[in-house]
């Protein structure tokens, strides 16, 4: 147990000292912020105001929508960046070297997962604090204690899910150049797969299905729901329940799969089961790779 802690601390120190890796981990977050500031925000505000008329609260609601998506992708990109250490170790044969010590294969593997989780959680919580500050400064109500706890809980699940999926991907990457390519691809695609760049309702049906079957997008749904409950009530106070539901479906605040709305419990199950499956499969693959 002690050696696991020391190995995690070593992985963490190396990640922190590799500024390129840290920058790459946060690249897609910067991209989202820039895209949002330049045109996404205004496009959405205009679209909603066309539906329900002009309201100051719309901008706050759209900000919350964007921030929920941003937090869901932060978990993905930061944990993937953290797995860069695992790939570096593999390429430079450090993993090989570790195996000559009493460290077990499971300990080595677990150390990368825990490190990715710690880094992902740190950056996601930091992003949450920053985003909440931005929301309050731009006129939103401060989140209630319960919502804050709810968001933190979802962030923890989101980071766990991202860690397990990224661990699986990292097992097949052997070089740092391949890792950079993967980082770039994930950083670009993740915004679409979580319905952050373009609302889910604006894409063709088959793309909607891809997004809905992509497990990480379920964390975005839960985060949007947590952030936006109050603002939706304010913005849509004169709207019909059908209009509200239509908006929620269009913007990925609820998912409708097989003509049924996916409940919060089911979203949670999807996240938890996917996390477990990817972790177990990854451990099996690692054991096979290092027989």
């Amino acid at each position, binding site marked *: 147990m002690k050696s696991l802690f020391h*190995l995690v601390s*070593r992985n963490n120190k*190396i990640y922190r000292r590799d500024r390129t890796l840290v920058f790459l981990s946060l690249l897609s977050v910067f991209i989202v912020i820039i895209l949002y500031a330049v045109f996404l925000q205004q496009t959405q505000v205009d679209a909603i105001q066309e539906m329900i008329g002009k309201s100051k609260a719309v901008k706050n609601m759209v900000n919350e929508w964007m921030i929920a998506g941003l937090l869901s992708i932060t978990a993905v990109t930061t944990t993937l960046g953290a797995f860069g250490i695992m790939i570096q170790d593999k390429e430079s044969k450090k993993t090989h070297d570790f195996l*000559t010590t*009493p460290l077990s294969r499971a300990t080595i593997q677990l150390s990368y997962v825990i490190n990715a989780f710690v880094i992902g959680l740190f950056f996601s919580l930091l992003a949450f604090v920053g985003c909440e500050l931005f929301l309050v400064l731009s006129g939103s109500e401060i989140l209630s204690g319960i919502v804050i706890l709810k968001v933190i809980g979802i962030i923890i699940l989101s980071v766990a899910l991202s860690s397990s999926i990224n661990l699986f991907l990292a097992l097949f990457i052997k070089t740092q150049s391949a890792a950079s390519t993967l980082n770039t691809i994930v950083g670009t695609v993740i915004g679409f797969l979580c319905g952050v760049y373009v609302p889910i309702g604006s894409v063709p049906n088959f793309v909607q299905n891809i997004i809905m079957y992509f497990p990480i997008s379920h964390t975005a749904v839960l985060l949007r729901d947590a952030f936006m409950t109050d603002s939706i009530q304010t913005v849509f106070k004169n709207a019909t329940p059908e209009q509200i539901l239509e908006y929620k479906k269009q913007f990925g605040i609820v998912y409708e799969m097989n003509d049924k709305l996916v409940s919060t419990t089911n979203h949670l199950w999807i996240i938890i089961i996917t996390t477990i499956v990817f972790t177990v499969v990854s451990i099996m693959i690692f054991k096979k790779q290092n027989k």
Partner: protein
Amino acid sequence: MSEQQGIIQVTNLMKSYGEFEAVKGISFSVKKGELFAFLGTNGAGKSTTIDILCTLLKKSAGEVIIDGYKIGEGVGNNHIRKKIGVVFQESVLDERLTVFENILNRGQFYNLSKHQIQENYQFVSDYLKLDDIQNKKYGTLSGGQRRRADIARAIIHKPTILFLDEPTTGLDPQTRLFVWDAIKRLQEETNMTIFLTTHYMEEASVANQVVVIKEGRLVAEGTPNQLKEKYAFDSVHLEFKHTFDPEPWLKEKQLSYALKNSIYTVRVASTLEAYDILKKLEGQIQSFEVVKGSMDDVFINIIAEKGSVV
């Protein structure tokens, strides 16, 4: 485990990758505290054998016992890992950490307390002179400094056996000498068993025991002197005056010789025989050099004798 049995016992070790047999049933034994040189051409199966001894690779057949524990059986591998230290050919330390941080981490992997690590650090620093580099990041070090750090890290837990895979390759002569001196001191003063692979035959010549493998098979073993007696020979290089033709004389004496660039290399049984030749040809010789048989000759002759070089 008795002293006679050896701290490393390898019996009929085999390793195959599909159809390809990398190691074809080699057996040897390494005594506690000795410097053991494991030689072979590139692709001979050295690295595969070392990987098996270091518990990195599963053997296909045979038996390996290290410090009384069988590799691949029960908790054997874990015990063995506590007893060994490994320095790989390539640097595997963390470039962004300082030398001390690297060594500290390594000690922690063996569950050593901070106090124990500090104590052991003094011990390794005494051998490898780490004072000037301990706070420098590993990535900023020169080749020689890196090697010192590599070895220091490999012995921070005071292993019984140290595996060194070509530890002095690529180092300048002065650094090589320093590293080599540290290795020899470690062996002599701490009774640490050193398992060495090297391409420098002068390093192998100070080993207690040498094993040569080729194409996965053991082709020679013995002390450096035993191998030199069998596979190397002393010679005298002679350059004669232009007025003298030495060939009739050399043929008459039935001496084995070779001519290259007007220098005759005459094979002799000992340096005393060389002295005898020099005395007899005195007056005809322009210059001469007596050359002792070396481990280079041993290696080249073993590889040549046992078939083509890979």
